[in-house]
């Protein structure tokens, strides 16, 4: 596992399985964090990149439901869609995720909310794809500029 994150958000890239895992704590109970993921009027306020407008075409966040949304930027539209495979209030959301630019590609995503007590929640979001190439394209997409020294990650890797 390659772990990154001196701040709050942690990213784990597994060398053996094509997955990326993100973990973060929130100062809100699981019910609230869950609602912010399932209510489309709340989702549009945070999910899309800041430079894009997010438009929801379809949103039925229940087990067996589906979704489609579009990120629009400078006249370009990027569509995303998938199905909600399992939705359990304040606990878990399992869904598929396809970027319509690569229609045959699909990620299986699992969002788990853990109640830490005192109105805090740990969110763990895992994205699993079907090849390392797809995973690495996933990690390196939408990246530009900037260089950062990060040899502590090398230390962690070597400590394994």
């Amino acid at each position, binding site marked *: 596992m390659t772990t990154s994150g001196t701040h*709050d958000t942690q990213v784990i*890239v597994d060398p053996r399985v094509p997955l990326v895992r993100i973990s973060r704590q929130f100062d809100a109970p699981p019910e*609230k964090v869950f609602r912010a993921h399932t209510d489309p009027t709340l989702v549009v306020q*945070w999910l899309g990149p800041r430079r894009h407008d997010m438009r929801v075409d379809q949103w039925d966040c229940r087990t067996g439901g589906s979704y489609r949304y579009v990120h629009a930027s400078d006249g370009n539209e990027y569509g995303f869609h998938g199905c909600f495979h399992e939705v359990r*209030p304040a606990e878990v959301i399992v869904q598929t995720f396809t970027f319509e630019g690569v229609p045959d590609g699909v990620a299986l995503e699992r969002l788990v909310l853990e109640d830490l007590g005192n109105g805090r929640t740990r969110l763990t979001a895992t994205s699993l794809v079907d090849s390392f190439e797809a995973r690495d394209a996933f990690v390196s997409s939408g990246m530009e500029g900037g260089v950062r020294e990060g040899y502590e990650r090398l230390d962690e890797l070597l400590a394994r």
Partner: protein
Amino acid sequence: MAADSLSRVFSALADPTRRDMVARLAVADATVNELAEPYDVTVQAVSKHLKVLEDAGLVSRRRDARRRPVHLEAEGFDLMTRWIERYRREAEERYRRLDDVLRTMPDDVDAAPTP
């Protein structure tokens, strides 16, 4: 820096023997024979592992020296950590927006309101 260089780094490190070799090279340079010693494999097999690490830019072999010691290339790891750090930062930005949304929500929110 293309995504396929990153793929090479990840797949080079997917193998436990290669990860172990990297860990030993972090301590000191070593020759192929020295690297092969602790494993129950041939020097040829170790050379193949080294080739994968070399193609990924994680190690280099000095051409001029007769012993041709293998050297760990920190820059190869830097590429990987840079991509991951960028990805992490995007996620952190997204979740800071979620923090803001959570602050605006009422406290007694129902996780799953009946439609």
